[in-house]
């Protein structure tokens, strides 16, 4: 047992490092995960014009498929991630074809009801197939964190998650700016009617959107599961922060969603930092409320988001 005075002395000495190690870095990790999910939410919202309540469940499905592939092949989750992305994309395109396509012409509110149902169906499907126990990607072996400059503690998985997220975002940037499909997606997000008039095959763009959204969701789900563990409610808990990030960045703005994700992730983690006095500014139990508060403030103050997204 460390005497109280000594403990405080230690804490004081490492005041800034504590902040970086236990609040800033987890915030960045969480932010990257939110950002990956939010890009998908934002693209689907921009191109298909409805809030997809089942996006968190795509993360869930992707993460569980990755888990099964990992068990099946014995490889690291990152190695099987591309295959899992493919499977999840197929699931997403299948869901779209069966359940969302019939409503393309109708009011978007009906599709939200449908997507709400899909979220529940997808979650119960996961619970039927994989059960409700929690899973972990790691085999229980605790990896010692890298320690830089004596005090900066970086865990390997955090470095991997942030680097992979940045790489994925770079790929998204290239797809959106350099490929025909990516440009068509941006065009359709700006105006679906004009895109159709210029001869863009909108149904193909919709498929590409789902593939992109589902692949990113898979990555986000795997990273989240890697950071903690897999459980059947993880998709639902991600829904609110992802929407907050997408709205913060501006609907239909993938770059905005990246920034929005980072802001929401950082805000959630930093809200628990003892900014005033010794106790956390906001009890960590209420973390989920931070994303919500940010979203409401944004919707009231500036509904187009930071990056001038669409307002529906």
């Amino acid at each position, binding site marked *: 047992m460390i005497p109280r005075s000594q403990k405080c002395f230690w804490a004081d000495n490492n005041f800034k490092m504590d902040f970086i190690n236990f609040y800033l870095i987890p915030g960045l990790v969480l932010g990257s995960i939110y950002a990956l999910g939010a890009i998908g939410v934002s693209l689907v*919202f921009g191109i298909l014009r*409805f*809030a997809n*309540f089942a996006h968190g469940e795509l993360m869930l499905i992707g993460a569980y498929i990755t888990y099964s592939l990992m068990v099946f092949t014995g490889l690291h989750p990152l190695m099987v991630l591309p295959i899992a992305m493919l499977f999840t994309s197929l699931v997403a395109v299948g869901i779209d074809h069966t*359940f969302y396509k*019939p*409503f393309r012409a109708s009011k*978007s*509110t*009906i599709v*939200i*009801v*449908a997507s*709400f*149902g*899909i979220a*529940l*169906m997808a*979650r*119960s*499907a996961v*619970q*039927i197939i994989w*059960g*409700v126990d929690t899973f972990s990607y790691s085999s229980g072996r605790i990896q010692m964190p890298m320690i830089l400059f004596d005090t900066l503690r970086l865990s390997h998985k955090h470095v991997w998650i942030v680097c992979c997220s940045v790489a994925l975002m770079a790929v998204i940037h290239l797809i959106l700016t350099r490929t025909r499909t990516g440009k068509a997606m941006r065009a359709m997000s700006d105006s679906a009617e004009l895109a159709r008039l210029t001869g863009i095959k909108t149904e193909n763009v919709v498929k590409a959107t789902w593939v992109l959204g589902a692949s990113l969701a898979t990555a986000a789900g795997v990273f989240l599961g890697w950071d903690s563990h897999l459980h059947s409610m993880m998709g*639902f808990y991600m*829904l*609110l922060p992802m*929407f907050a990030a997408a*709205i913060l960045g501006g609907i239909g703005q993938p770059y905005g969603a990246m920034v929005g994700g980072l802001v929401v992730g950082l805000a959630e983690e930093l809200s628990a930092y003892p900014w005033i006095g010794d106790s956390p500014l906001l*009890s960590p*139990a*209420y973390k*989920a*409320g931070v*994303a*919500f508060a940010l*979203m*409401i403030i944004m*919707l*009231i103050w500036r*509904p187009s988001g930071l990056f001038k997204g669409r307002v*529906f």
Partner: protein
Amino acid sequence: MDSAQAYGYMLYFVSLMTMGGIYAIMCLGLNIQWGFTGLFNAGIAGFFAIGAYVTAILTTAASTSHLGGYDLPVAIGLISAMAVTAVIAWLVGLLCIRLRSDYLAIATIGIGEIFRLILKNEIWATNGARGIAKIPLPFESLNEPWNKIGFMMLVLVIVTVFYFLIERARLAPWGRLMTAIRENEYSARAAGKNVERVRIEAFVCGSVLMGLAGGLMAHYIKFIGPGATEPLTTTFLVWVMLIAGGSGNNRGAILGAFLLWAIWSFTEVLTGRLPAELAVKAAYFRIFLIGLLLQIVLQRYAGGILPERRPSLNIKA
């Protein structure tokens, strides 16, 4: 069939009608919000929980584990449940009602989630995850079947009273204006109507019914905790009830509630007979099938069993 068996069936029927009635109240509430006005509320369970906790805190006897011990009559508990839900729904409405339906849907999910967090974490008031027990059941002094039958009658009377009130409101200018807003917000605005105000009114009225249903449920099962009802399942079930019964039609809302609750309850009885491991999976399979039912209704029978019928134009109101 001997008399004990018949008695068991009768009790089951009573519980079916009671729960169906409680869901019918929520369904009528959602009908005002979604069916009439087109407001997407994905936080039904949140308002339900507020009602349940308010009446639980007010009507239980003193306890060290949670706030309360006021030991007030059930009627006051239920009325307070409605009043508190109304105030909270009004505040939520002020914040979110201007948002387009997609955003309102996300916002209500968030609100439901925050309510859940508060109820789970503010242990001094709600006893946290262990919940509040020993909530009094009205007519408790009566003998075994009669207390349950009495409560069922109470629920059914409440459903009937609200059915007539809401049906009257639907035909009145108030209800018609709500539908006008649902169909075309801008033309309603152009006609000089205060769209925001009517939407808030619809949101508050609907949420009050959800709070009342929560209060009734707390008294009926005599216990309320964060896990007493799985929030998403409750919310989702009410949605399927309304869509299947007929969104915009009050009779459809009530029919959908009783019908879906009967299906939900029967399948629970059936899956309960399976071996333990299968029974757990079957529970999720039920949710999956209810979700599939929603999709089929949405795609094939968009109006539900009793589709909405607009009042004729020359009604004497």
